[in-house]
């Protein structure tokens, strides 16, 4: 059974120094509030896992919380570079960042294999691509029936996975709606997991028997954090702040302006601050 608790408690209990951690959400439902709490609690030596590192990992990398990162596309979507990520890789600032780079297909398959308790994933992929030459975690496997050769990658089994979702009920069952990305897989592949949610309701009342639901016994902690996905979005609650994504380019381009932003908005902030984004943005919600 998931424990319903505060964000501070959830991070305290589930995220440890040195952990491999997956914070997922494919553009949608990115758990920003949880990312900020990890920075406030000063976690160190994390190995970050995420298909699209996005601003959330740019922030964790920029404060020096990460020893390494496994990823498949490290940009600011539709805007440009992740400057903190680039600064870490190009200039080792604020510290070197070990990278393990894959394609989206490989990452998605590796999460899927992790959820299915398999040691590796196979795919028709990486043919003619140089990534296989620089990443020793891309190998091959031969079909025992046809002799075909396929790419193989290790499954992803994070110490902890964190997601944001629309709703949980009071037992801790969690509903995800809209673009669901790899969140279900990330939670099921992990040893421990946290779901932050927009609302906690009496009845989950999914819109269809086939809705994306994580049962309470498959999640470690559930936390009520309205607006917790800002500047990403929550389908049915608030829209993506494309303006913030555009603004981030300038904030993150410079080490000092980044550090000042973190000091003011993250170290000086709290989970409840995210709630104001719901009101501000709800007019755009579906």
């Amino acid at each position: 059974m998931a424990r319903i608790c505060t964000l501070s408690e959830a991070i305290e209990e589930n995220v440890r120094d040195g952990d491999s951690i997956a914070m997922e959400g494919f553009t949608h439902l990115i758990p920003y509030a949880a990312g900020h709490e990890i920075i406030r609690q000063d976690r160190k030596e994390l190995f970050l896992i995420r298909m699209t590192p996005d601003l959330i990992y740019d922030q964790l990398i920029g404060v020096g919380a990460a020893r390494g990162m496994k990823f498949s596309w490290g940009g600011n979507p539709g805007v440009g570079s992740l400057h903190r990520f680039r600064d870490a890789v190009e200039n080792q600032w604020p510290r070197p960042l070990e990278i393990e780079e894959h394609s989206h297909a490989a990452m998605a398959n590796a999460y899927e294999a992790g959820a299915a308790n398999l040691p590796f994933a196979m795919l028709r992929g990486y043919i003619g691509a140089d990534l296989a030459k620089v990443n020793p975690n891309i190998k091959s496997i031969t079909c025992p029936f046809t002799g075909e050769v396929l790419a193989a990658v290790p499954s992803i089994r994070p110490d902890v996975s964190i997601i944001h979702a629309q709703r949980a009920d009071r037992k801790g069952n969690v509903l995800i709606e809209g673009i669901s990305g790899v969140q279900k897989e990330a939670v099921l592949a992990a040893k421990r997991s946290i779901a932050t949610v927009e609302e906690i309701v009496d009845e989950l009342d999914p819109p269809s028997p086939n809705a994306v639901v994580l049962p309470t016994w498959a999640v470690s902690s559930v936390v009520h954090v309205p607006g917790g996905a800002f500047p990403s979005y929550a389908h049915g609650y608030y829209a993506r702040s494309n303006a913030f994504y555009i603004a981030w380019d300038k904030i993150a381009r410079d080490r000092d302006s980044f550090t000042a932003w973190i000091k003011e908005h993250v170290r000086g902030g709290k989970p409840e601050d995210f709630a104001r984004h719901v009101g501000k943005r709800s007019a755009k919600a579906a």
Partner: protein
Amino acid sequence: MSIEFTPTEMMTIAAARALTNDDVCFVGIGAPSAACNVARLTHAPDITLIYESGTIGTKPDVLPLSIGDGELCDTALCTVSVPEMFRYWLQGGRITTGFLGGAQIDRFANLNTTVVGDYDKPKVRLPGGGGAPEIAGNCGQIYITMALNKRGFVDHLDFITSMGHGEGGDHRAGLGMKTKGPTRVITDLCIFEPDAATKELTVVSIHSGVSRATIEENCGWPVRFAETVAETPVPTTAEISVLRDINARTKKAHEAA
């Protein structure tokens, strides 16, 4: 009556024209997204657009800034998980046409979006491949849209993020790939297609008002021209107005949000 248009507009419209009603199209962000939606709003209303976030049959009213904007899900026939998207739909061989772009392209339409310089000590760390390596391998064919300039069209790639025609000839088929790979590269100055035998990119159509010399000056390798080179028809009033309308709606939406 002549219409004023920019090279970028010409590129987007030329790309849109390459698409048909029967296409099931894996759409990237930026120029591909504009082209696919212009096609949908002009000559190909029944085209199926798929974004890698899992949205199938989407009909956005404004262009998404990211690959997973809410607009894509709101207007989709259905939305599947990302593992399902890559397993059943892309790898499943259900996509007829994939759209790619990149920081760098070579004469065999291989693309680099990973690093400039050495992989371990990069001069410029680019975002990486994302969906590209398997889009390049598993879609029926690939269209590429990129502005033609020497920074992008290079003699040698530092890194092959996604394979086009490799070293040319039958290299691609020799690796067991059954899909066509890049069949068209649509730029702001001209359209390339791979030569049937060598697979080297060859100019088959030049946009109105562009000279061969301009193309040669902006390309990092000695450009080949097809025996017969067409002139790309200029955008129609309808095409231009659809493109400008969607760009205007998009700008307004992104600034407001």
